[in-house]
């Protein structure tokens, strides 16, 4: 946490809209001085052994630095060689998107405070949302009924996710944990009683997602790591180290593409990880500020990011570079969240200026601006069948657009 912030200061900062818990890279303690964490850093455990090996093989800090500099240069050259054209140039021959008839179709009211996160159920009608006051609500999007509500023991529930089966939800935030609540058909049953604590981080939980089944949970945290957990036993299956500041978002690759996920954080980096080995396989650093959200393109060959620098960007994984920037001089507020439409042609982005912008992914221009929310948009997600998308906002409501 950033220094010692009194409860009163926290309240003031929160009311002013500042994410007071978020630590920028410059403010983080260097890894050497970090106290022991729940998730062991490979550096601490094996550093002595590696250092001995390094000294034995004659490597010094200087030779290693030379090698890393030359590798970085080589990477830049390789990437530049393949940069033969811009995406929007190739897309010139594609037809323009005709006028969209998207408007608010539902307004979900019921949260008493800022809604921070939401997720769709695979049945395309239910949603789960979480808010600053600790409430997690499951809604029926068609009828506006609140089907379940639970109050978490912490505030700022920044992450929530629906299980693939539709039978449970996961959520967490300032409690540094991710808990799973099985959803009961019996409305009178106390959900909180069946709560299972699965993930344990050493700082706030920023994101969570079930993998292909209800059995595994992937989490991202302000402690700079991501982790994969077994839901039943709560066991840590794999941890992902590499970010040098808070991780703010994660997204799993579409199931056809295999076991990878992408994460974005306060170190302005978006990293792609192999879930089995824990290895960081690709890294992108072109944003000028914190990356708030990352989302895969439907094929899994690319992903988009939303950042506090006011831009959204598209990165192609096979070309290993940024291929588009979605920006306008008039957009000066940060982008908090992005999602693609079913075909990948449209990119919906929520901003801190209360609007949602719809971008043409291929041509790079903004197609329309959607107004309606009365405060920051914190989360946008397209429904599983692509017929609508939902947005969550600090104005305490959620909207469904179609």
């Amino acid at each position: 946490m950033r220094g010692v912030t009194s409860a009163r200061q926290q309240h003031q900062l929160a009311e002013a809209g500042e994410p007071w818990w978020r630590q920028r890279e410059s403010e983080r303690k260097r890894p050497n001085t970090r106290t022991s964490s729940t998730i062991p850093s490979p550096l601490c455990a094996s550093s002595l052994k590696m250092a001995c090996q390094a000294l034995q093989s004659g490597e010094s800090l200087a030779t290693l630095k030379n090698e890393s500099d030359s590798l970085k240069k080589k990477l830049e050259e390789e990437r530049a060689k393949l940069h033969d054209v811009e995406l929007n140039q190739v897309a010139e021959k594609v037809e323009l998107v005709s006028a969209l008839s998207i408007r608010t179709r539902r307004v979900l009211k019921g949260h008493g405070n800022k809604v921070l996160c939401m997720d769709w159920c695979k049945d395309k009608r239910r949603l789960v949302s979480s808010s600053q006051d600790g409430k997690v609500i499951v809604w029926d999007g068609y009828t506006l009924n609140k089907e379940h509500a639970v109050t978490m023991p912490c505030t700022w529930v920044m992450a929530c996710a629906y299980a693939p089966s539709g039978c449970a939800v996961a959520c967490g935030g300032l409690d540094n944990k991710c808990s799973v609540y099985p959803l009961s058909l019996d409305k009178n049953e106390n959900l909180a009683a069946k709560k299972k604590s699965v993930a344990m981080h050493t700082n706030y939980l920023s994101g969570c997602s079930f993998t292909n089944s209800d059995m595994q949970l992937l989490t991202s945290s302000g402690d700079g790591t991501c982790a994969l957990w077994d839901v039943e036993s709560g066991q840590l299956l794999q941890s992902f180290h590499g970010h040098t500041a808070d991780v703010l978002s994660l997204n799993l690759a579409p199931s056809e593409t295999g076991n990878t996920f992408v994460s974005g954080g306060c170190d302005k980096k978006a990293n792609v990880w192999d879930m089995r080995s824990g290895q960081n396989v690709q890294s992108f650093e072109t944003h000028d500020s914190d990356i708030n959200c990352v989302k895969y393109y439907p094929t899994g060959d690319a992903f988009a990011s939303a950042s506090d620098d006011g831009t959204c960007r598209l990165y192609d994984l096979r070309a290993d570079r940024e291929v588009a920037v979605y920006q306008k001089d008039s957009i000066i507020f940060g982008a908090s969240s992005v999602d693609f439409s079913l075909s990948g042609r449209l990119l919906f982005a929520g901003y801190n200026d209360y609007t949602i912008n719809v971008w043409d992914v291929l041509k790079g221009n903004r197609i329309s601006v959607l107004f309606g929310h009365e405060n920051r948009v914190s989360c946008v997600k397209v429904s599983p069948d692509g017929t609508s998308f939902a947005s969550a906002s600090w104005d305490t409501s959620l909207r469904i657009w179609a």
Partner: protein
Amino acid sequence: MSTNNSIAQARKLVEQLRIEAGMERIKVSKAASDLMSYCEQHARSDALLVGLPASENPFKDKKPCIIL
């Protein structure tokens, strides 16, 4: 001890960069055309792009609006 840590970190960075450098990459033109063809193939089934009639979209009201 701190020198050993710096060496370990530098070594880790070099290993990471070696992995990234060894990656097979394709040209942006190829990547772009693949993105385009996916968009085109699926455009018709993208309800938010082409629009679904009210009868097929559960979020759109089927009743006609009366403007007062």
